C-alpha cells in the first residue's frame, strides 16, 4: 500500500498542536514535560518523513533525527532533575504554586 506524505504530516501537526496546547493548559510539571516531548517528536517525525519522501537518496534528515532524540533525552534528564529539586522544596509539582518570582 502506498501512503502519501500527508498521512504522516497530518499526525505530526496534530502532535505539535497537542503539545503546545498541553504546554499551555497543564498544571503539573511532569505533564508539561510530556507535552514538550510530543512537540519534539513531531519535529523528528517531520524530518524522517521529508527525508523518506522528498530526498530518498540522502540520509541527512535521519541523522538529524537521531541527534535530536539524544538531545531531547538530555533535556528531559535536566528538567526531571530540576523538578525533583522543586518537589523537595515545596512538596509538589503544581505550577500554580511556583509563582514567587513575578513582576
Amino acid at each position, binding site marked *: 500500500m502506498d501512503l502519501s506524505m500527508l498521512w504522516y504530516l497530518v499526525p505530526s501537526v496534530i502532535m505539535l498542536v497537542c503539545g503546545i496546547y498541553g504546554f499551555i493548559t497543564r498544571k503539573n510539571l511532569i505533564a508539561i514535560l510530556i507535552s514538550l516531548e510530543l*512537540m519534539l517528536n513531531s519535529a523528528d517525525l517531520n524530518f524522517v518523513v*521529508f527525508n523518506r519522501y522528498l530526498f530518498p537518496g540522502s540520509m541527512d534528515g535521519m541523522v*538529524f533525527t537521531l541527534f*535530536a532524540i539524544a538531545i531531547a533525552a*538530555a533535556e528531559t534528564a535536566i528538567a526531571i532533575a530540576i523538578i525533583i529539586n522543586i518537589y523537595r522544596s515545596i512538596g509538589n509539582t503544581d505550577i500554580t504554586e511556583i509563582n514567587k518570582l513575578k513582576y
Partner: protein
Amino acid sequence: MDYSQFGSMIPELIVLGIFMLVFLFDTFSNEKGKRILTPLTTILFALGTIAIWIVPASCEEVFGGMYINDNATNAIKAILNVGVFIVFLQSSKWVNSDEVAIRKGEFYELILVTLFGMYLMVSARHFLLFIIGLESASLPLAALVAFNKRHYESHEAAIKYIMTAVFSSAILLVGLSFVYAFSGGSLYFSDIALYIGQGEMSGLLLIALAFVIAGIGFKLSLVPFHLWTADVYEGAPTAITSYLSVISKGSAAFAFFVIFVQCFGAVYSDAWEWMMYAVIIATITVGNLFAIRQKNMKRFMAFSSVSQAGYIMLGAMAVNGLGLASMMFYIFVYVVSNLGAFAVINTIEENTGKLSMDDYNGLHKSNPWLSFAMTLAMFSLAGIPPFAGFFSKILIFTSVTSSNSWALYMLVLIALINTIISLYYYLLVVKAMWISPEEPKIGTFETERCQKVGLWLCVAGIVFFGLVPYIYQYCYDAVQSSLGFLTFFNL
C-alpha cells in the same frame, strides 16, 4: 577519516583543553588542592583568551564545510572569552562561599561546556552542528541557574528557563524540518541558500522562518519571546545572571546573523525583513517601558538587556559586512558595560544582601568607587557621548542606514526615540546613588581583590573602547577578511 581536521578548531581545542584540566584537577585533587582551583581556572582561562586573541585564525572549512574557522568567528570568540574571563573574576567570592565551595568545580566545568557550545554555534555552517551547539549552550545553563541549591528562587528560575528553552528548541526544530523540506536534501547553510534562492516564496517557508526566528529569538530574549527573562535573571545567582545576559546573548546574536544572512539572505525582503522589523521595534520599546517600573536591580537589568538585544539585532537588519562588524563591536561594548553594572550589583548583594534600587540611595557617601563604576556603566548602556556605548550605538545606526531605504530610516528613528526613554531609567539609578539626599543604607565595605580587577577592566573598557579606534577596526578587518571566504552577501 582525516583527524588532522581537528587541528583547525583551535579555539574549541583550547576551551576543551582547559575544561579537561579543570575537570581532572577537580576530580583528583584533595581538599587542600581545591583551594587553588579558582586561581588555576582563571589563569588558565586568561592564557587561553590571550592565545585566541593572538593566534591568527586558520581560515578554513573542515568536516566537509560543517565547521568554519575564519577571522570573524575567531573575533567573536575572543570577545566572548573576555566576557567569560570577567565573569570568572566577578564570581571568585561567590564560588568560595561556604554554600557553593564544595561544588565550585562544577561551576567552572559547566561554564566552559556552555562556552564550547556557543563556539560551535557561531562556527557552525550546518544545521546539525548548529543545533548541537545551541543545545549544549542552553542545557548546562539550566543547571547553572539552579546552582543555589538551598534557595527556592533558584529552582523556580531554573524550571522556568528549562521549560521555555525546550519549548523554543522544539519550535526551532519544527521550523528547521520545514526548511529541510525546501533545501534539496541538505542541511548545509550554503546549499539551503542556493535552493531557497532558486525557488519562489511560499507560505510554508514563511511559517518555517517565523518558527526559526522564534527559536533563536528565545535565546536572545527578543520581545514576544522574552517572558522568561526577568524571572530567570532574578532567581539565578548573580554571576550566572551576568553570564546569561551577555555571553549567551552575544553568541546567539552572531549565530542569528550568520543563519539569516547566509542561509535566508535570498528571501530577506520577501520574508524576514518585516518580521524582524516588527520584532525589533517591539523588543526595544517593551524592554524600555517595562524597565521603568522595576525596583529590583536584577529585574531592572533583565529588561534593560531585553531592549539592548533589540539594538544588537539592528545589525542584522543591515545585512552587510558593516552590520556584522558593528554588531560585534556592540556586543563587545555591551559585554563590558553590562558586566560592569552586574559586578557592582554582585558585590553589593554579596556584602550586604541588598538588591532593591531604593537601597542604592546615597551610595556615593559610603562606596564612592562602586557608585563611580556603576555610573559609568549606566552612561555607557544609555549611550552618553564620551563612553563606549555612544560609539557602538552610532556605528550600528550608521550600518543600518547605509542601505538607504526609508523603512530602515524609520526603524533607526524609533530606536533613537527609545534611546531617550532608556536614558530616563538608567539615570534613575545614577540619581539614587548621587543626588538622593538620604543617608546610605549600604555600609562601607571593601570589595574583594579579584572583583576589583574585574571592575577596573570593565571601567577601562567603557572609557577606552569608544575612544581607541583599534577595537572597531579589529572587528571590521575581521569581517572584511572573512567576506570572500564566507560568500555571505551574494544577495
